[in-house]
C-alpha cells in the first residue's frame, strides 16, 4: 500500500456519498462551463477570416435610418478597397415560422466574393444566383434545418417592410462563422418597394489591414455634413455595439455563475466535514501511530482535491465534448452559431475546482488542528 492508495481508499469508503459529491460537482461545473460559454458567445462573437478587413457603414443617427444609394459611387472610388456592397436587413419571417432564427439580407450579389469571400459554394450556383433577380442563397445550417434544396421556393414575409418576397433557392453556401444567413438581391427589394433610393448599410472590404483605419476616417469624412452622415467602424466594433445591448443578460449570467460556485462550495465543504467528523476517531488513531497534523491534513486535502478533480473531468470534460461535437445552432434553436469551450473557460473551471478542493478542506483542517488523540479516541464509532 502507498500513501496515495490509502487516500483513494478513504475517499471512496462511502461510495454513495463520494459519488453524489462528484456528481454534484460535475453537474455544477458543467452548468458553469455552459454559462461561461454563453457569456463568451455574447462577449466575443466568432470572427471570419475577412472580419479584420471589413468595415460596416451605417447611418450615424441609428441603424434603423437608411443610407442613400448615391453613397455607393463615392465609396467605390476610394483607394484601398476590394469591394463594397449594400446590406439591408430584411427581418422577415420564413413561411409561418414564428421563430425565424436566421437573418435575411439584401445585397449586391456580384460583390459577395469580394466582401464576404468566406461564403463558399459551387461556381455555377453563384453564377445562377447573380443572374436570377428573384433568387436567394441560403446558409447550409438553414438549409439543413428546413430540408431545403436548390430550386425550392423560399418565401419571406415582410415584418419591417410592407412587402413579401417570393424567392427561389439558387445556391447553398457554407464556410462563414454563421452559416444561417440568407442573401438575396438588393435590386429585387428595391423593385418591390418602388425604388426608394436607399439601402440599410454599406459593407466595405479593405485591401489590407493597414488600410482599415484610414478608410474608416475617409468614409466618415466623405459624408460629414451631408443629409446622411455615416458611422463607419470595423466589423468587430459594429458587432460589439450590438452586444452591449445584452449587457444586462451578461450581468445576470455572471451572477448565476457566482451562485453556482457558492452552492458548490457549500456542497463539497459539507461532504468533507461529514467525512472527517465520522473519522475523527480513526484520525486520532493515526495520530497515535505517529502521523502528524500536517500529514493528516494533506490526506484530507488530497481527498477533497480528488473529488473536485474527478468532478471537473466529468463536468468540464463532458461540456467540452458535448459542445465541440454538437451543432450549436441545432442545440440552441439557432440562437448561437457556435458554442466554443475555450481553453480559458476550461481554465476557469479548473481554477474553481482547485479552489473548491482547498476551501472545502478548511473546516476539516480546523478540526484536525484541534484534535487531541485522547479526545478523539473517546468519540464513538
Amino acid at each position: 500500500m502507498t500513501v496515495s492508495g490509502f487516500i483513494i481508499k478513504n475517499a471512496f469508503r462511502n461510495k454513495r456519498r463520494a459519488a453524489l459529491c462528484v456528481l454534484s460537482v460535475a453537474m455544477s461545473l458543467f452548468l458553469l462551463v455552459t454559462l461561461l460559454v454563453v457569456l463568451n458567445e455574447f462577449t466575443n462573437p466568432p470572427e471570419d477570416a475577412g472580419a479584420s478587413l471589413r468595415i460596416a457603414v451605417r447611418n450615424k443617427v441609428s441603424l434603423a435610418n437608411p443610407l442613400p444609394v448615391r453613397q455607393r459611387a463615392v465609396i467605390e472610388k476610394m483607394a484601398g478597397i476590394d469591394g463594397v456592397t449594400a446590406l439591408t436587413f430584411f427581418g422577415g419571417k420564413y413561411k409561418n415560422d414564428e421563430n425565424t432564427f436566421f437573418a435575411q439580407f439584401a445585397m449586391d450579389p456580384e460583390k459577395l466574393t469580394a466582401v464576404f469571400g468566406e461564403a463558399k459554394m459551387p461556381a455555377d450556383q453563384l453564377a445562377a444566383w447573380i443572374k436570377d433577380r428573384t433568387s436567394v442563397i441560403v446558409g447550409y445550417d438553414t438549409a439543413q434545418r428546413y430540408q431545403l434544396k436548390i430550386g425550392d421556393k423560399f418565401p419571406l414575409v415582410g415584418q419591417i417592410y410592407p412587402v413579401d418576397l417570393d424567392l427561389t433557392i439558387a445556391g447553398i453556401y457554407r464556410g462563414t462563422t454563421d452559416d444561417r444567413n440568407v442573401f438575396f438581391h438588393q435590386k429585387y427589394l428595391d423593385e418591390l418597394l418602388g425604388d426608394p433610393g436607399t439601402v440599410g448599410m454599406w459593407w466595405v472590404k479593405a485591401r489590407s489591414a493597414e488600410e482599415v483605419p484610414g478608410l474608416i476616417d475617409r468614409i466618415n469624412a466623405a459624408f460629414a455634413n451631408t443629409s446622411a452622415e455615416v458611422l463607419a467602424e470595423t466589423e468587430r466594433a459594429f458587432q460589439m455595439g450590438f452586444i452591449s445591448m445584452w449587457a444586462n443578460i451578461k450581468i445576470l449570467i455572471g451572477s448565476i455563475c457566482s451562485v453556482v460556485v457558492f452552492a458548490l462550495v457549500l456542497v463539497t465543504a459539507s461532504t468533507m466535514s461529514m467525512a472527517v467528523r465520522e473519522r475523527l476517531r480513526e484520525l486520532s488513531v493515526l495520530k497515535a501511530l505517529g502521523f502528524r497534523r500536517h500529514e493528516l491534513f494533506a490526506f484530507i486535502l488530497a481527498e477533497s482535491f480528488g473529488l473536485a478533480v474527478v468532478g471537473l473531468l466529468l463536468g468540464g470534460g463532458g461540456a467540452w465534448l458535448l459542445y465541440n461535437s454538437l451543432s450549436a445552432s441545432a442545440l440552441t434553436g439557432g440562437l448561437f452559431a457556435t458554442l466554443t469551450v475555450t481553453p480559458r473557460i476550461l481554465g476557469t473551471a479548473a481554477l474553481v475546482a482547485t479552489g473548491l478542493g482547498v476551501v472545502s478542506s478548511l473546516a476539516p483542517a480546523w478540526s484536525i488542528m484541534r484534535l487531541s488523540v485522547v479526545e478523539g479516541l473517546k468519540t464513538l464509532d
Partner: protein
Amino acid sequence: MPVAAPIVQVRELTKVFRQGEINVTALHRINLEIAAGEFLTLMGPSGSGKSTLLHIIAGIDRPTSGDCIVQERNIGALNESELADWRNQNVGFVFQTFNLIPVLSAFENVELPLLLTQLSARDRRRQVTTALELVGLSDRMKHLPRQLSGGQEQRVAIARALVTDPQLIVADEPTGNLDSHSAADVLDILRRLSRDARKTVIMVTHDPKAAAYGTRSIHLEKGELTN
C-alpha cells in the same frame, strides 16, 4: 525491584482535567518505575486514572506537573512533532475497541505505521508478514476488519503495534471486548512479547485473570497508587 535500568520513570506525576469550572484530578503525584521487559498490569476501579496514566506514558497526553521519562527522554518536553516521531518509533498501541481502519485489509492496517518510515516496499512487506505471523494471522492478510472475528481484529491490532519494533507496548483493556478464549490468545501473545522479545508491555485491565499474565501488577485508586 527489577535489575535492569528502568525504561519508564514517572516522578510526582499529576494530571488535572479542567471541566468548565471544576477541576478533576485524574492522577495525583504518581511515582513509578518500569523495567525493560516487564509485563506490567495496571488495575483499579473505573475512573481511577488508569487510562490517563497509560496515555501520558505513551506520549498521547501531557502531565499537568511532574515528569515522565521514557528511555531517558523526558517526553513532556518534546514538541508535538518530535512526540509524533517518538511514538512512531518507540510505542505500540493496542486499544479496547481494536481501532483498525475499516477500509484497509489486515495487511494494510499493519503496514500503516511503516508508511512513516524510510523502509522500501519490500522491507515493509517483510516486516508486516513477520508481525502477522507472530500473531498467527498469516492466512488472513487480505481480510478486511469486518471479515475478522473480534479476537482476530485485536491480534491484527497487536501486529500493528509491534510492526515498527518498538520498545514499549501499551494496551488499554485489550481483552475488554473479547470472549475468554480470544482473550487468552491475546494475553498469551502479549506475554510472549515481553518474555521472548524483551518488550516492555503495560496493560490496563479490570480482570484479575488477565492480570495474572503479567510479571507485576499495580493498583490505582482515585488517582493514587495503592499497594
